[in-house]
């Protein structure tokens, strides 16, 4: 049955796929909000909270932030290229996004490794911040818990974003997407930007404030 649809002014007759991903993103954003608000609450409630620069590696993560920002831009380029029908450039931009996303995740894992293993550097930082212990693990303090909770949740999103990119990339290599048909790419773009958006919140709340 070909459906005859009731038109919908309130939503500009947005395609279902796009509406779906938007609603999903709003839902997901609420989870992030809950985690960040919980962290803020615990902090204002008096949990011991060192100044972030004392423990976390802010310069490295700042670099990471720029990486993610750049990936957002390349993703935008990919969408633009598929819209204008430039297959080669489209695939290239997608590849760049994949690379940048993977780089982000790699750096993040490196930082995690340092914290959990408790390298010399981390120990020095901890001592300087007046915190006990030789490593920085979720169970070390409420602060550490919030850090791992927020960044870990975000990291999982990056991971699923990467899988999504690979899936679309595979389709692109088979030539599935073209000027007329690229809703999947648009959904991917929305999801990837959302990850970037959430990182802005996480970065500010967890690393900078």
């Amino acid at each position, binding site marked *: *049955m*070909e*459906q*005859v*649809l*009731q038109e*919908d002014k309130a*939503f500009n007759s*947005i395609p*279902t796929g796009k*509406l*779906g991903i938007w*609603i*999903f993103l*709003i*839902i*997901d954003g*609420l*989870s992030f*909000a*809950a*985690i960040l608000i*919980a962290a803020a*609450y*615990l902090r204002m*409630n*008096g*949990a*011991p*909270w060192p100044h972030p620069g004392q423990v976390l590696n802010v310069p490295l993560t700042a670099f990471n932030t720029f990486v993610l920002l750049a990936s957002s831009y390349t993703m935008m380029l990919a969408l633009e290229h598929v819209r204008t029908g430039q297959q080669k450039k489209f695939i290239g931009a997608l590849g760049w996004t994949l690379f940048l996303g993977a780089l982000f995740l790699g750096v993040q894992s490196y930082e995690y490794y340092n914290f959990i293993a408790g390298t010399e550097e981390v120990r020095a930082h901890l001592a300087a911040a007046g915190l006990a212990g030789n490593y920085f*693990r*979720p*169970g*070390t*303090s*409420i*602060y*550490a*818990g919030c850090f791992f*909770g927020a960044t870990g*949740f975000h990291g999982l999103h990056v991971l699923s974003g990467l899988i999504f990119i690979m899936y679309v990339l595979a389709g692109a290599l088979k030539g599935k997407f073209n000027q007329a048909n690229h809703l999947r790419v648009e959904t991917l773009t929305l999801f990837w930007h959302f990850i970037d958006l959430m990182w802005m919140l996480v970065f500010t709340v967890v690393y900078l404030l």
Partner: protein
Amino acid sequence: MSQKKESFLSKYVFSTDHKTIGKQYLFFGMFFLLWGGLQAMILRWQIAYPETTIPIVGHLMFPDTNGALTPDTYNQVLTMHGTVMLFWAVTPLLSGAFANFIIPLQIGAADMAFPFVNMLSFWIFFLSGVILLLSHYGPGGSAASGWTAYPPLSTPVGGIPGWGQALWALSLVLMGTAVIMGALNYITTIIRLRAKGMNYLRMPLTVWGLFLSSILNAIFVPIIAAGLIFLLLDNVLGTQFFVAGPKATIAGGDPLLYQHVFWLFGHPEVYILILPVWGIVSDLLSTFSRKPAFGYHVTVICMCIVTTLSGLVWGHHMYVAGMSPLLGKSFMFLTLLISLPTSIFFLNWLGTMWRGSLRFETPMLFAMSVVFVFGLGGLTGLYMGTITSDMYLHDSMFLVGHFHYTLAASVLMSSFAATYYWFPKMFGRKMNPLLGKIHFWVTFLALNYVFFTMLTVGYAGQHRRLFDPSAYDFIKPLMGLNRNISTFAFILGGVQILFLFNFFYSMFKGEKAGRNPWEAATLEWTVDYPVPHGNFSTPPVVKCGPHEYSNPKVKGKDWASQTEEIPA
């Protein structure tokens, strides 16, 4: 629709047809309803005859203790009863089975917006149920800190050994994921896939109820998921987000944070369950009174207001948890405010029946009983909503009575009503009306005895979650009544077997139903059983509202389907 040959697996197991998924949810929910019901029976047995062997199932379920409960198994059964009933019985029935089956049919859509996500949602739900059931057999048994799982009791500090609590949190997170996927689907479907002419104010109230409840799901389930992930971390990674006091090894955790987050979700959750009920009951009353739903617009507005308010009142569960006066007062005001829209649309229910022509079919009996039990359940909410009376009644059996009247009575009765009502569309046959009526009357009477007497003993001071209430002297005089409750609870449980029999008997042997056995006006009754994949052979065009009954302009019959033009 492509007529690809479908294998058994893709037709009955991993089907993407919303009707099949709806039926899968129906059986899934019924199984857990039975499971939760059985647990209720075990609880009642223990309360009436403490520490004696439970008949029939005792030796099977509790072999180590000669078939009797012990305090820890009592708490486990109690926790599982609450959790299973709310999240694995009623949720799959309402926002799983009926939402899936009814929404596309009633708005004239071919299927859900995302059939694949829909299928995935069911199987994640299924997985979560399996994990929950298996947690019974893990070390230490299942979770045992109540369905509210207040930390620190629900963390390792609380002294309950085993994996139960972690698995409980994990399965709830999975269930949340499934529910979110469902809600996403329903919202998108209702917004974008309505048939031509089906504007928002022509949607049946059932769809409205499911729509609003999906919105609440979409907003609040992710929040509790985040909270439960934190609880899970507390349980497995040794964080202490929710632990404080002398037992805490890490400074700065806060048990109240969990309570806030839990109830921020927990209160909307009860409205998530009741909103579809309101919709279903409104539609059914209208159909069987042969009269348009009274004040349709007002009802819709009231439901929207309740939906909005429901997110702002969570604090009424924490009145006695050391709440600041200003906060307490605002929560009390907002809580009591909810009774204003509720009573307006409650009045509309009565208005629908007023001057109607009431046909007492089985679904109608159940729908009318919801008017009765929800009135009582809602009004007992007022006792809880006022701070000073809540000081006495908080966590008492009176509260248990309140929420069984709203949940176990209203929600369950309307699920029965919906099952009897849509059964012909699901299986092509009617359920046996005589058995249905016997089921109704026994259920109605026993249920009222059980839950009313809970209110009674609560009024007299008995509090909840007691393994053996007679440990307290002031409860000893109430033990007689408690035993009576149990007796009637067993009758209540027993008569559900009749329902099950009727269900499966009618599935194969019931009277064949025509296209529209109830002479109802909404779109699902314009297609023949079995409804094909893709639903409507020609796209429906909607020309009037959902409740055109007894319209004098329509000649020859007392109803007009939504696809019919009303003569000028």
